[in-house]
């Protein structure tokens, strides 16, 4: 078992065939749905990136190259399982069919933003989608997920929790606390480390990734740990499914390292050419997860370049329609906004006197 923490679980071989004991044997329909969710995520990312460049919002973060990490996991989990993501798992929301318009409203902080313009772009939150509020403070969600899972187990609730953390953020104490509590209380939680090899400008070695795999961090806590090719949709699906079954059977936590690659800059505030040689997506280690799944479908004989192009066109249309709708509700600096007085709400359940006074003082 411990060896799996140092290995790299893959299902797709060089000829795009699904092979080996981790083959999840998914149906064509499931795989096409996964491909569509990944394409939709990528199309969404590229529209929002453009919107930021056009000044329609302040900030954006893409998940390019990492779509399988989120989408395959979402498809392997039950739709009611609770996700504690970082800012790079928008694919979870997309795969769970959460509204693109709602996502965009949040990015634009517009008049329909469910988060009332309070959060920076991409810090989504959706109880309905089982997608926990993203924190700006790296790592905090990881140990919170364990608490949620402990609560679920103690209520004999069938739902499990899954959390994601970047390989860079594993250096935070929260990572350690998550492993400790998950192990001690055998919480039904899947702890995912997304090793996209970069943390802004620093290579994964600065988080200790050159000395051991991130999956092997689980060994010292007695947590079954798997290292998987994060750009292999089938492999990610398989390990997530395995971990979810364990959790649901009461066998406790699993740590999964998803080896992938941040194909683009950290965010719109970043310029990766200053610190890494080449952002040409052609050099993606392990290959583009979308291309690989598409090729696999083709190898199964149920997919063609034309179908792929058509699907790309379709998702672009979906995204564009959502974009138009969302922009009709305003963007960060244009169009209608929520009343500014709302900034005093929800600090507490009931507004205490000092905030009532400040609201009055503000004249808002």
């Amino acid at each position, binding site marked *: 078992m411990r060896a799996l923490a140092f290995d790299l679980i893959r299902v797709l071989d060089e000829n795009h065939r699904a092979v080996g004991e981790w083959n999840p044997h998914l149906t064509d329909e499931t795989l096409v749905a996964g491909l569509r969710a990944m394409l939709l995520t990528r199309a969404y990312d590229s529209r929002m990136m453009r919107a930021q460049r056009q000044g329609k919002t302040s900030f954006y973060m893409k998940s390019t190259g990492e779509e399988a990490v989120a989408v395959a996991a979402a498809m392997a989990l039950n739709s009611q399982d609770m996700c504690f993501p970082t800012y790079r798992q928008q694919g979870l929301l997309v795969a769970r069919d959460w509204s693109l318009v709602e996502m965009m409203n949040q990015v634009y902080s517009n008049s329909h933003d469910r988060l009332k313009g*309070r*959060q920076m772009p991409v810090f989504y939150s959706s109880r309905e989608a089982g997608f926990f509020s993203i924190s700006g403070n790296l790592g*905090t969600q990881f140990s*919170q997920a364990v608490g*949620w899972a402990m609560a679920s187990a*103690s209520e004999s609730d069938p739902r499990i929790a899954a959390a994601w953390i970047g390989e860079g953020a594993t250096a935070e104490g929260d990572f350690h606390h998550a492993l400790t509590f998950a192990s001690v209380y055998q919480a039904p939680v899947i702890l995912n480390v997304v090793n996209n090899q970069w943390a802004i400008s620093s290579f994964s070695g600065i988080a200790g990734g050159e000395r051991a795999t991130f999956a092997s961090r689980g060994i010292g806590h007695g947590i079954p740990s798997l290292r998987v090719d994060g750009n292999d949709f089938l492999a990610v699906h398989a390990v997530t499914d395995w971990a979810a079954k364990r959790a649901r059977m009461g066998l406790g936590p699993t740590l999964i390292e998803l080896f992938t690659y941040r194909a683009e800059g950290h965010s719109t505030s970043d310029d990766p050419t200053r610190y890494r040689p080449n952002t040409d997506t052609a050099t993606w280690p392990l290959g583009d997860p979308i291309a690989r799944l598409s090729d696999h479908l083709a190898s199964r004989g149920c997919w063609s370049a034309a179908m792929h192009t058509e699907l790309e066109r379709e998702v672009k249309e979906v995204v564009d329609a959502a974009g138009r709708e969302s922009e009709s509700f305003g963007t960060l600096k244009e169009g209608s906004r929520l009343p500014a007085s709302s900034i005093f709400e*929800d600090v507490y359940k009931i507004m205490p*006197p000092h905030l009532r006074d400040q609201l009055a003082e503000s004249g808002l």
Partner: protein
Amino acid sequence: MNATRSLSMIQAINEALDVALERDRMVTIFGQDVGYFGGVFRATEGLQKRHGSHRVFDAPISEAGIVAVAVGMGAFGKRPVVEIQFADYIYPAADQIISEAARMRYRTCGEWWSPITVRSPYGGGIYGGQTHSQSPEGIFTHVAGLKTVIPSNPHDAKGLLLAAIEDDDPVLFFEPKRLYHGPFDGHHERPVQSWSDHPDAEVPQGHYTTPLGKARIVREGDEVTVLAYGTMVHVALAAVQETGIDAEIIDLRTLIPLDLDTIRQSASKTGRCVVVHEATRTCGFGAELAALVQKHCFFDLEAPVERVTGWDTPYPHAFEWEYFPGPARVGQALRQIIEV
């Protein structure tokens, strides 16, 4: 009202936890040594046995982990009550308290929140040295989204703790450890007192709450207003008795949200105000109180608001009584302020 008995503060806290566990199956209690052992101060004694180890249990020595897990449980729908063994050890949990619990409701527009209570013994006078004596409340009262509660007697301890647990916002509940077993007025040279004869140690059985955000006028008076909380309420009472000054003593009970109305009325009436706390002075909660009183009662004040506090040093082991703002120092401040 339920029948009352005389309880110590630690018994009152234990009873509040027991009642909370009994009434709401979502209440979950954990922290270092709180399970089988019942806590190093015995606050959770017997609770694991009565309510089961799924609801009352030991946690790893990770304050950040404890609060994080509470936040996660709160998001699920539980109502966690966690113990930080000494308030001095709350700092490792600062990020989870400040960045997470305090802001969860705001950042999700009410979609999630953190109905958690963080209990922690605070304050000195037990030869605990600098890492078992601190009063860190002033750090957290600066953080929007948190409530901070500090009881001064068994009756309030039970009522406020139940209110804190039932509150849907995150509450820091600091317990003056020097009051666990008896009222303490700062006269460390005198024999230890017990709560047994104290009127505020009459604790009703069963469930009741003491509302958050309401101060209590412990003693009415005309010459000067004393704002205090926790142990310092008793010190202030001693100072008033010893000086014979007719002070109005207000036990704040809740720092955030603050009962400004009661404070304002009193300070406007007396025209003088002394703020007392054990924490270091600079940027302590007393700074906020002084800032508020001078603002709201400016034209009624005869003298500047004075602060009697712990010094701006760590809490020194062998010199804790030189550090502690005892009745002599409070009395001196009272005498001086009425001369102005």
